[in-house]
């Protein structure tokens, strides 16, 4: 009962958020967070729960994004159709890919997803007649205010969480985890591992592709470097998953919040703190530091990956008991 109350409260807060905080900047950040909740949940399904780690999530994101963009650009159909169709397109990509690559175990599957990511990015860059290449595609935004986008993103995020929750309590969920823990044992217990790996991948692709479709409509502009980005999409998706906690329903939500915050801290030099300090103190060191900090967000990602894997491998939600123990230990020491 207590848990449901907490969740309803959270939902209520999220629902009124854009009316309480009218600053477009924070609304933008929350939209990003919600988008990443969806991507992270999708990633978590195939990587965390089913154990087939996705290193190239941007493949599905980019396909979703381009579907939306191309619908408008080439067929003059509203890019909003790209939202559901982007998800469908991602699934259509996942199907043959999984069919071919699921015979690869473990790390080789992960590599294959990386290769897919690179191949798609190359194709999008080179096939200029279709995608305008590096120039990118511009999409007219339907709304000036961020609020409609916020609620659509919220809907997507809620859909993702609910979907993962329902699936993992069902037969599929049990099968996914069985496959992750030991594929051979799972087969011996009658589980068609190839089929269920496919199911898991398609579900993941769906969520990630939907997020891609949303992205195009929200940002109004996409190009191969952005939507097929290895660092800003694929690695970010992994971080969202592992920071929050793989194989937990709410892990990606927490991970999304933290990772977007981290990204912003670096992009703005501590939310503008460092440049402001630079101005007030007049120390050139501060301004240079601010500049460097905003350029090193990829470095921070790398360090985060290393640190999280070493010290918090099951994420905040997964390793929560050890975190609590550590906090209690520090509090006792201070006392």
């Amino acid at each position, binding site marked *: 009962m207590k848990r449901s109350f907490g969740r309803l409260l959270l939902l209520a807060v999220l629902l009124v958020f854009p009316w309480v905080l009218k600053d477009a900047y924070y609304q933008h950040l929350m939209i990003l967070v919600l988008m990443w909740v969806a991507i992270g949940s999708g990633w978590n399904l195939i*990587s965390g729960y089913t154990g087939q*780690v996705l290193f190239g999530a941007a493949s599905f994101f980019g396909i979703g994004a381009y579907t939306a963009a191309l619908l408008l650009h080439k067929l003059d159909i509203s890019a909003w159709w790209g939202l559901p169709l982007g998800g469908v397109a991602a699934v259509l990509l996942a199907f043959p890919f999984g069919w071919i690559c699921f015979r690869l175990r473990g790390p*080789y599957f992960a590599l294959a997803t990386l290769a897919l990511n690179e191949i798609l990015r190359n194709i999008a860059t080179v096939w200029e007649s279709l995608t305008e290449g590096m120039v990118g595609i511009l999409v007219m935004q339907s709304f000036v205010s961020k609020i409609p986008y916020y609620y659509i993103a919220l809907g997507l995020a809620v859909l993702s969480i609910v979907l993962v929750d329902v699936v993992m309590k069902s037969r599929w969920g049990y099968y996914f985890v069985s496959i*992750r823990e030991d594929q051979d044992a799972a087969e011996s217990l009658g589980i068609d591992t190839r089929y269920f790996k496919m199911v898991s991948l398609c579900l993941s692709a769906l969520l990630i592709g939907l997020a891609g479709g949303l992205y195009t409509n929200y940002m109004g502009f996409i190009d191969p470097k952005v939507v097929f980005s290895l660092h800003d999409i694929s690695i970010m998706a992994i971080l969202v998953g592992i920071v929050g906690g793989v194989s937990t329903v709410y892990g990606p939500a927490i991970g999304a919040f933290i990772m977007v915050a981290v990204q912003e801290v670096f992009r703005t030099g501590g939310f503008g703190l460092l440049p402001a300090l630079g101005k007030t103190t007049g120390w050139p060191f501060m301004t240079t530091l601010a500049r460097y900090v905003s350029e090193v967000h*990829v470095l921070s*990602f790398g*360090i985060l990956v290393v640190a999280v*894997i070493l010290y918090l*491998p*099951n994420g905040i939600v997964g390793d929560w008991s050890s975190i609590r123990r550590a906090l209690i230990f520090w509090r006792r020491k201070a006392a």
Partner: protein
Amino acid sequence: MEVFLQTLVAGILKGGLYALIGLGMTLIMGVMGIINLAHGQLMMVAMYVTFVLFHYLGIDPYITLLISMPSLFLLGVLIQKFLLNPLMKVESILPENQVLMTVGIGMVLTEIARFIFSSNYLSVKTSYSSAAIFVGGISFSVALTIAFIFACTLTGILFWFLIKTDLGRSIRAVSQDGEAAQLMGINAERIKVATMGIGSALVAAAGTLLLPIYYLFPDIGGPFTRRAFVITILGGLGSTVGAIFGGLTLGLAEAFSSTYMGMEFEDMVGLVIFVLVLLFLPGGLKSLTKV
């Protein structure tokens, strides 16, 4: 015909260097069972070391080999000891921890390089960088040829090491059956550290040798990592002989596609080979499916 032979030569020479890259990675793969996605980035570090020594101290790259190889050996050892070995004791749900860790390491190395050197394209222009000798009407790039000779020598030393020395044999033992090797008293952890060091040293050599005829920028690691695992998968995981053939194949493929289709396809060639191997390679794939 001349163009064909020219391309053939270029491909083989480059392939020899690629074999060095692949050898390092396949050793690591065979012994540790992990794919080192920071392999190209290690090469990048070696290339920057070579650049700095050349630019500020005027040391010739071939002599820098004596510095870059040990330094990267050390770096590899440190990485294995403090970042990768501890992972085996960590109880994590996510299976591909180690590979992911190497991705993180690769990112950190790249960004630190960018921080120090910025994204500018750098190069090392030695006296022989653009020199070429002509044999039978075909031009052999001097730098590339010398690099090829070095690569062959290093490969030879590596094989001698693996077959004749105790450490080398221990490495092969761990590569074939880690548990059995441990039961025989081999300290698997130390072997893994040594192997990472050797693999890093090999790719460092490739980097140093390649710098005179290449250009250097922080993001150069990525494409080379990709080449490394294409070579390794093509040749068969853990197979040192395979890595040599894989390297030569990739070198030739890149050379021919560059000549007959255009330079922008060089990157794609590796990816295409990777896909083809995935789809069609019988023997290689079989060993992938029951890992």
